[in-house]
């Protein structure tokens, strides 16, 4: 009996010693997540969830610092030296830009994680004032006389670029009926006529924009707080957040007939996090991978983003997302790189059609 007691005691001692060494090795890790504007609430909720989970898995303490701003501006800051360990931006091109200019992100970053490294998606919808006084139903209502449209500057804002492309997709779809014709050489003439019509329409659309904010959140504040404009082109998540948490029933969401699948991707900034050591690198990778876990996906849906894995999300959260015809950028424009070069780079289509 006493033999057993002493064994147990020794065992307990050994265990606690083991526990002590585990805790002694537990690292304090700080990671910086540079994100775009409307993800504030999402990451405010996700960061503690991840830290807690990671501590249970590894014993390491991870503190996540956040920086938010227009997606393009954030990419620019990382290029200029902002020491972000992970970037969670509004669109792939902004991460491409960091990869191209700094080499801190591998060129094939988009295949590092499932679903093109986009753990959640969204789309572009319209937010209008209560009762929809201007009777806005679809994209072509935006260019009617006397309608003021609020959308941010596509040069600096990721959301604004999705807005732009969504409008473009709508016209192509209206003109061609089937977007499959875009790649079919038999329809070359029809396609170029449709492209010209899209250019005409989008140019007309920007003539109805009284203020070009630099980021999506600024545009929302212009519409909601400053009471400017009749319709806000918004991320679906931003529109929900506004109507359900801010608006006190002052706003309605209008779902257009056609829109774009907005895929906000995430990537580890290898060139920055490697300076912090292996434990930090592991944590940064886990931080992004864990976004695909059921609990994080449920959180994603609760924060009005469309989860890529809807299994774990609550039924009520999922029921909020309307069904509409959605097309991806790759399908219509080839890739984000091509879309960026054609439409948003200096001297591109946006510069030609936007004359303030």
């Amino acid at each position, binding site marked *: 009996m006493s033999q057993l007691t002493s064994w147990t005691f020794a065992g307990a001692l050994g265990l606690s010693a083991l526990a002590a060494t585990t805790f002694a090795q537990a690292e304090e890790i700080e990671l910086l997540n540079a994100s775009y504007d409307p993800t*504030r609430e999402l990451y405010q909720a996700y960061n503690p969830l991840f830290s807690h989970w990671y501590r249970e898995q590894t014993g390491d303490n991870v503190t996540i610092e956040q*920086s938010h701003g227009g997606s393009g501006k954030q990419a620019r800051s990382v290029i*200029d*030296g*902002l020491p972000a360990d992970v970037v969670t931006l509004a669109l792939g091109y902004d991460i491409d830009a960091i990869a191209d200019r*700094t080499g801190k992100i591998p060129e094939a970053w988009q295949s590092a994680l499932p679903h093109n490294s986009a753990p959640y998606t969204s789309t572009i919808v319209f937010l209008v004032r209560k009762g929809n006084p201007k009777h806005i139903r679809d994209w072509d209502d935006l260019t009617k006389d006397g309608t003021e449209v609020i959308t941010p500057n596509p040069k600096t804002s990721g959301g604004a670029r999705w807005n732009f492309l969504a409008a473009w997709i709508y016209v192509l779809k209206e003109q061609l009926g089937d977007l499959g014709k875009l790649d079919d050489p038999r329809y070359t003439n029809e396609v170029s006529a449709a492209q010209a019509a899209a250019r005409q329409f989008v140019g007309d659309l920007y003539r109805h924009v009284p203020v070009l904010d630099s980021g999506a959140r600024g545009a929302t504040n212009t519409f909601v707080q400053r009471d400017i404009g009749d319709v806000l082109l918004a991320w679906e998540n931003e529109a929900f957040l506004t109507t359900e948490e801010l608006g006190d029933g002052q706003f309605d969401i209008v779902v257009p007939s056609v829109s774009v699948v907005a895929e906000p991707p995430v990537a580890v900034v290898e060139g920055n996090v490697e300076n912090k050591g292996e434990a930090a690198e592991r944590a940064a990778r886990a931080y992004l991978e864990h976004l695909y876990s059921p609990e994080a996906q449920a959180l994603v849906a609760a924060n009005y983003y469309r989860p890529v894995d809807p299994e774990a999300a609550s039924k009520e959260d999922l029921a909020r997302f309307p069904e509409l015809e959605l097309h991806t950028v790759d399908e219509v424009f080839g890739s984000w790189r091509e879309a960026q070069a054609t439409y948003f780079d200096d001297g591109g289509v946006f510069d030609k059609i936007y004359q303030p």
Partner: protein
Amino acid sequence: MNSTPHRHIVARPQADETPLVRYLLSSLAMAIIGLFLILPLVAVLVEAFRDGWQTYMTAITDRYTRHAIGLTLFAALVCVPLNTLFGVAAAWCIARFEFPGRSLLTTLIDLPFSVSPVIAGLVFILIFGAQGWFDGWFAANGFPILFALPGIVLATMFVTLPFVARELIPLMQQQGAEQEEAAIMLGASPWRMLWTITLPRIKWGLLYGVILCNARAMGEFGAVSVVSGHIRGSTNTLPLHVEILYNEYQFSAAFAVATLLAGLAIVTLIAKSIVEWRQQRQWESASS
């Protein structure tokens, strides 16, 4: 010394406008002040307490707010003394000596006033950025400048550079160099002359410049916004924190933090009035 005084103390002319004109003018002035100064201040206070005292206290004692206060105070604590030293030295050179490039120097001191703060911030990005002239050398060697404390201090230094010098140059020019020349001729060391003649004579002007410099250092937004990176709890100054809270739809919290800045502005105004009053008396005794 043939320096022209930049300011005159003129006896108040006898008012010969009709009472009606005087009444209209002063009510117009009051209306403008009420509209542009008092109303915003009231709005800040009303918004700050809209959700109650509890929300207000939570907002201003929040971890990130405390850090922002600390960072703002630190930046001011570094910038104001350095700019004071620079201001006294520059004003001394310009007011006391004739040298080639003197007027160029005077103009250059004004540069931060004429350049948009955003441009000032971008200049630092061009110099110290990872793609800039130094190619991120500082950051690579463990001493990051941008998106870190040194960048914030540098940007604040730049925008507050002129305040002390601008205040002292006309004052020292008007005072003339006679007393200092006399001190030197009577055998005082330059150091003694500085402490017993120069500084006591400019102290109110100096203090006035320091107060303005401090107010701007704590309130600067544009230049700091460009070099900060907006990292919460790390590179977020008080004005930037207000913007972040506002963008997070925490309007009451944003205005609560704004009351701290408004409080600073009021303290600055009071201190400034006291100093102005003392300075006025000094001018009067100097010109009599």
